[in-house]
């Protein structure tokens, strides 16, 4: 039915299966849209946020997806600036994932603010000293870059590519892609960093506050965030690629590409986590104590012992050093189980880091006579957070079906003569099922 739109030399499932899965995901999307409308029409009383928890699930989701979407800028940086040619085989997907993550972040921000219709005040009445302003500007600009990077991909669809103008545009944009990639890397450096600064500048919140470089400009979490996004973003790109491969039931990217990206990630994570450890130690023994806080105050005696030292151990050791080593050692990263483990841990690690720096900051009592604040999101918050996940899956499904995202797919999966359409459809359908059920927990923190 839609075979004319499907890229040359690759096979796709039947239209029926495709639509069926589209509608299932679409239902989840609609649920999210319903929650979104509730929040817009009735206001933020639909959430479980309160005056102590002004930032909650949504802001965490924003920070997390931006970090995970960091794969786009960093892969682009490696591909176009550093010149790692192999990465051209994964850059398309990295861009798509980045596009989804960044559009998701903007959507969530649009729900999160109390006056969405005044959202543009952040640009118009900008306070340049606010980390959020920096985030808003760089994030929006970088989103434009992502769109620009995504456009050639769309235009490479078999039908649009036939149009000479589009074909030429694609070609010309590829020619100058390095400029966009460089600009993207520049912008990402700042907004990733500014997100790190969001809690780092809060000198009223000893849990989040960090010393500043040169005493005033940026807190050290600025650099840690950029670094961790560059380190863990590619892991998320690999993870989503691997999941897509599992679902599609075929190899889409060659091992050497994954291997290279994984190796770089490994070293990035290692250097990041060493820096993070140093930061944590300095904060725990110098910064926080100077305001009367010892580490135990942050990690003990809270209701249900939710916030314990286990967080530090999980974030730094289990989700930091462990994946770093798994990815650095060649033998380990080439063992599929360990590679999978490492990328999943890295993704959890960076998400946990963002969680801690948003929610624990607000949970810790600062006034000595107040208690810990405990928060659990409302269904509306959860639904609106899942909404972009569903949207992401849909966009990936559609893009994968109609666009030549994986340049190596045809080579890795040569079409045998006279394929049976029924057989083709079946594994695809099953694979879709795995994607929605098994794939969701991993995708959720990422694209939410």
């Amino acid at each position: 039915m839609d075979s004319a739109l499907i890229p040359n030399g690759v096979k796709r499932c039947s239209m029926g299966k495709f639509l069926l899965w589209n509608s299932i995901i679409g239902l989840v999307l609609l649920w999210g849209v319903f929650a979104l409308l509730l929040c817009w029409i009735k206001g933020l009383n639909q959430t479980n946020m309160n005056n102590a928890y002004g930032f909650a699930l949504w802001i965490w989701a924003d920070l997390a997806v931006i970090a995970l979407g960091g794969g786009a800028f960093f892969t682009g940086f490696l591909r176009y600036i550093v010149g790692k040619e192999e990465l051209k085989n994964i850059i398309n997907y990295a861009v798509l994932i980045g596009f989804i993550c960044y559009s998701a972040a903007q959507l969530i921000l649009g729900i999160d603010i109390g006056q969405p219709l005044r959202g543009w005040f952040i640009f118009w009445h900008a306070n340049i000293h606010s980390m959020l302003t920096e985030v808003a500007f760089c994030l929006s600009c970088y989103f434009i870059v992502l769109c620009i990077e995504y456009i050639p991909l769309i235009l490479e669809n078999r039908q649009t590519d036939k149009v000479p103008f589009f074909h030429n545009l694609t070609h010309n944009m590829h020619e100058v892609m390095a400029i966009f990639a460089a600009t993207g890397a520049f912008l990402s450096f700042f907004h990733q960093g500014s997100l790190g600064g969001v809690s780092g500048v809060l000198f009223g919140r000893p849990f989040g506050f960090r010393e500043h470089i040169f005493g005033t400009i940026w807190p050290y979490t600025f650099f840690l965030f950029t670094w961790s996004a560059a380190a863990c973003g590619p892991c998320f790109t690999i993870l989503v690629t691997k999941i897509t491969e599992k679902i599609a039931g075929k190899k889409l990217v060659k091992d050497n590409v994954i291997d290279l990206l994984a190796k770089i990630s490994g070293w990035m994570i290692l250097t990041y986590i060493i820096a993070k450890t140093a930061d944590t130690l300095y904060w725990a023994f110098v910064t926080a104590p100077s305001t009367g806080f010892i580490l135990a105050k942050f990690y003990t005696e809270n209701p249900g012992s939710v916030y314990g030292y286990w967080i530090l151990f999980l974030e730094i050791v289990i989700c930091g050093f462990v994946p770093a080593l798994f990815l650095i050692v060649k033998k380990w990263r080439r063992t599929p189980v360990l590679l999978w483990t490492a990328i999943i841990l890295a993704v959890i690690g960076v998400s946990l880091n963002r969680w801690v720096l948003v929610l624990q900051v607000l949970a810790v009592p600062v006034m000595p006579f107040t208690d810990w604040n405990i928060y659990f999101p409302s269904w509306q918050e959860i639904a609106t957070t899942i909404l972009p996940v569903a949207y992401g899956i849909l966009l990936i499904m559609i893009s994968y079906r109609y666009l030549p995202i994986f340049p190596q797919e045809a080579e890795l999966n040569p079409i045998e003569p006279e394929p049976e359409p029924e057989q083709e459809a079946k594994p695809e359908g099953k694979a879709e099922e795995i994607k929605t059920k098994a794939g969701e927990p991993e995708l959720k923190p990422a694209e939410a």
Partner: protein
Amino acid sequence: MEQVKDKKFGMVIDLDKCTGCGSCMVACMSENNVPFREDETDKLLSVAWMRVYKMTNRKPYPDTEVCYFPRPCMHCEGQHSGHSPCVSVCPAVATDYSTATGIVSQIYTRCFGCRYCMAACPYHARVFNWFDPVWPHGMEKSLSPDVSVRMRGVVEKCSFCYHRYQKAMEKAYVDGRKELEENEYQTSCTQACPAGAITFGDLNNTHHEVYKIAQPDHKHHGKSKNPKVFRLLERLGTNPKVYYLSSRKWVRQLGDNYRPDEIMK
């Protein structure tokens, strides 16, 4: 022409006198058109600019002691002029620090509700309008035209009754004066407090009562020279303009965080 000196309006709350009655809270609500809802028992959803906290020495009966702790906005000055925790983070300049008065303002029509300032404020002085404000039919008559009613989705907080300052200045201007008398500008809570526990005035003016009690050391970010006077969470460097006076040591200690090794000495 003589230059008008910068003011630094601040407050001293005498915790020895404060009885925790809550009149300051209602005085503030009534003055500032604060909305109310059917269920106000979730204090984290409640809009209140002034909140009276209750603290105890955590000792068992009969050695228990209780102290009430009224908490308006601290109008922090920060370590350098105007670098209060909230003002520095607001992305849309919806809150600002006035160096002329030392008051941290909040522009409701500018605020787009990101709540970053709430995350920044360690005093929970900022509250968000989670709900549309609703006055039951007829009750809107009690609204004061001096203060605009806030819409849902924006952050609000104590303004030190800034509109009263404006009114007083207008009057002074008509009288041909540039400076206000101490009693011309007082906040609603100060005026109402039945115990007279609140003293309000200009911390830069050595003749003002508030200066005499607080004895701020402007060379050290306003730290009080009065041993009985302290500020809440002073160590964070917020440099608040609300001072507290208590003759009880445990109360003064509960005003800030101390490491175990500091409490020993």
